[in-house]
C-alpha cells in the first residue's frame, strides 16, 4: 500500500505544481496565424500581408518528415487565431491531430481544397497521394486562391486588403508559371531528364512536361537497391544526361554512388543542387520565399542540364 500512497502523493504534488503557466510577452491584439511548413507560411503571408502575424512551426531546412514538435509549438497552435496546414499526409501523423483540432479551433486544411483529379496518387494505392503540390505553380495558385477564400470567410473585414494582395500574388504566380514552362522547354527539347535523390518532383514533371526520375522512393526509410543504381547509371549514359541533383533535406550519399558509377563508365555527370524541396531557404537568401524557391530550383535545373 506504501507504493500506492507514494504514487498518489507525488502525483498530487506534480498536479499542483504543473498548474502554473508562465506568461509570455508578445504582440498583443494582432491576429495570429500558425502554419505548419514554412512554404505554407510564406503563402499565407503573401495573402494576409501585415494584417496578421504568420509563424511557421517548421524552421528553415526542416524536413516535414523528421520534424519534432517543441514545447513552444504547442503554444503556437493553441494560441493561434487560425491554423493553416498543408495536409495530404505531408505532416505525417500530425495531419490526423490537426484534423481533430479543427473541432475546437479555427483550422484550414489546404490540401483538402484541391480536387482529387488534380492530385497524383500512387498507381497501386489510390488513397495515398503525393503531397508535393507546390512544384506545380498552377496547382499552388489554385490552392492559394481557395485558401484566400477560406481566410476571408473567417475574416470578412479583410476582404479588400487580401483581395488586392491576392491579385498581386496571382500575377506573380502566373509569371512564374510561364517562366518555368519556358525555361524547362529549353532542356526538354534537348531530351534531358530531371534526376533527383528523392521522389519530390512528380508534380513538377507533370506540369512542365519533363521526365522525372528519383533514385529513392517517397519514404526516406527506403534505400536504393544496387540494381536501381546501376539501372540509373545506364540510363544516364544512354540519354547523355548532364547533371543529377541533390536535395536540401536528403543525404546525398546514394546519389553520389550514381555519379561514381557514371564516371567509371566514362560519362561525366555533374552533381548539382541542392534543390529546395520540402522547405524554403534562408529568409534573406534567394530561396527565402515560395516564388524565389521555385525560381532558384528552375534556374539550377536549366543551367546544369542545358547544352552549352
Amino acid at each position, binding site marked *: 500500500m506504501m*507504493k500506492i500512497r507514494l504514487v498518489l502523493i507525488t502525483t498530487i504534488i506534480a498536479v499542483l505544481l504543473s498548474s502554473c503557466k508562465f506568461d509570455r510577452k508578445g504582440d498583443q491584439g494582432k491576429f495570429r496565424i500558425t502554419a505548419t511548413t514554412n512554404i505554407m507560411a510564406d503563402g499565407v503571408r503573401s495573402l494576409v500581408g501585415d494584417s496578421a502575424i504568420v509563424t511557421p512551426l517548421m524552421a528553415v531546412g526542416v524536413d516535414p518528415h523528421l520534424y519534432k514538435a517543441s514545447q513552444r509549438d504547442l503554444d503556437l497552435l493553441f494560441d493561434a487565431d487560425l491554423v493553416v496546414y498543408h495536409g495530404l499526409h505531408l505532416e505525417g501523423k500530425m495531419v490526423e491531430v490537426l484534423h481533430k483540432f479543427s473541432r475546437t479551433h479555427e483550422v484550414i486544411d489546404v490540401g483538402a481544397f484541391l480536387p482529387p483529379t488534380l492530385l497524383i496518387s500512387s498507381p497501386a494505392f489510390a488513397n495515398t497521394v503525393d503531397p508535393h503540390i507546390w512544384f506545380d505553380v498552377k496547382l499552388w495558385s489554385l490552392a492559394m486562391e481557395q485558401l484566400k477564400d477560406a481566410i476571408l470567410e473567417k475574416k470578412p473585414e479583410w476582404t479588400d486588403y487580401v483581395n488586392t494582395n491576392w491579385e498581386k500574388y496571382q500575377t506573380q504566380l502566373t509569371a512564374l508559371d510561364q517562366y518555368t514552362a519556358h525555361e524547362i522547354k529549353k532542356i526538354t527539347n534537348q531530351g534531358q531528364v530531371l534526376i533527383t535523390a528523392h521522389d519530390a518532383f512528380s508534380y513538377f514533371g507533370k506540369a512542365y512536361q519533363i521526365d522525372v526520375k528519383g533514385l529513392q522512393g*517517397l519514404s526516406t526509410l527506403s534505400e536504393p537497391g544496387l540494381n536501381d543504381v546501376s539501372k540509373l547509371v545506364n540510363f544516364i549514359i544512354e540519354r547523355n544526361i548532364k547533371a543529377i541533383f541533390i536535395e536540401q533535406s536528403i543525404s546525398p550519399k546514394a546519389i553520389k554512388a550514381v555519379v561514381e558509377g557514371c564516371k567509371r563508365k566514362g560519362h561525366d555527370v555533374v552533381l548539382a543542387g541542392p534543390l529546395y524541396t520540402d522547405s524554403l531557404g534562408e529568409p534573406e537568401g534567394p530561396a527565402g520565399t515560395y516564388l524565389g524557391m521555385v525560381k532558384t530550383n528552375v534556374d539550377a535545373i536549366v543551367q546544369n542540364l542545358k547544352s552549352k
Partner: protein
Amino acid sequence: MSFDPNAFIIILTGSMIAISCGLLGVFLMLRKMAMTGDAISHAVLPGIVIAFLISGSRHGLAMVIGAGLVGIIATVFIEYLSNKVKLQSDASIGITFTSLFAIGIIMITFLANQIDLDQDCVLYGEIAYVPIDLWITGSGTIMGPRVTYLSLINLTLVSLFIYLFFKELKISTFDKEFAATIGLSTVGVNYGLMGMVSYTTVSSFEAVGAILVVALMVVPPATAFLWTKNLKRLIQLTVALGILASFLGYYLAFFLNSSIAGAMASVAGFFFFLSVILNRKQIPAIKKKLSKMKVA
C-alpha cells in the same frame, strides 16, 4: 502565472506512461531484457506495412493494430529464443528485432516509389500534441484528450497485472528453478509480462513517440537499482523517478523551448548519472560492510 491545462495534461499523461513503462521496466531490467522496448520500436515496421497493405490507409488505428500484433510476435519470439533455444536474452532481442526490421525495410523498398511509410510518420505520436489530440465520439461529443484516456487504461492494466501476479513475477525473475520445483509455471507469467510490454510500448509509441518510451523503460529502473536491491523499494523509486522526469522534463522543455519528450528523457538520464556519482562515493563503505558480512 495562471493555470495551464495543457501543461497539466502533458505532465499527467507523461507521468502515467512513465509509471507503466517503469513498472514493466523493473522486471525487464532484472531479467536482462531492458532493451525490449527499443527492440519493439524497430520490430513493428513490417506490421505497419502489412496493416497498410490490408487497410489501404495510413490512419492511426490500423497502424496501431498492425504494430501491436507484430510487437506481440516479436516478444513471443524473444521469449522463445531465450527460453527454449537457450540463447542469451540480449542476443535473442538482437536477432528478433533486426530480422523483423529488415523484413520491414524490404517490404518498404517494394512500395518505395509509391508511398511514404515508416514508423516516424504513421505510428509515433508526439507528447506535445496530447492536449489537442481529442477523443471525439461517433455522435460528435468531445471527450477530452484521447491519449490521456489510453494511458490511464494502460496504467490500470499494467498495475493490475503486476499486483495480481507479483509473486509469480518475482519468483520467475529471480529463481526460475525454484519456481519449477514448487510447481509454478513461469511460461504463462513470462508471456504475460512480454505481452504487457508489447501492448504498453506500442500504445505509448502511438501516444508520445519512441524515444521517451524506450528511455522510461530503462533509465528509471536502472537509476533506482543503484540505490536499492529490494524489489518493492525498486518499484517505488522507479515510479517516483518517472513522475519526476516527466514533471521536470516538461519545464526544462519549456525553458529551453525544446522537444518535450527529449527533455523528459534527458532529465531521467541526468538523475541516473547523478546517482552514479553519489553512489561511487559510498562504494568504500558498502565494500566494508560486505567484507564484514563474509567474515561473519
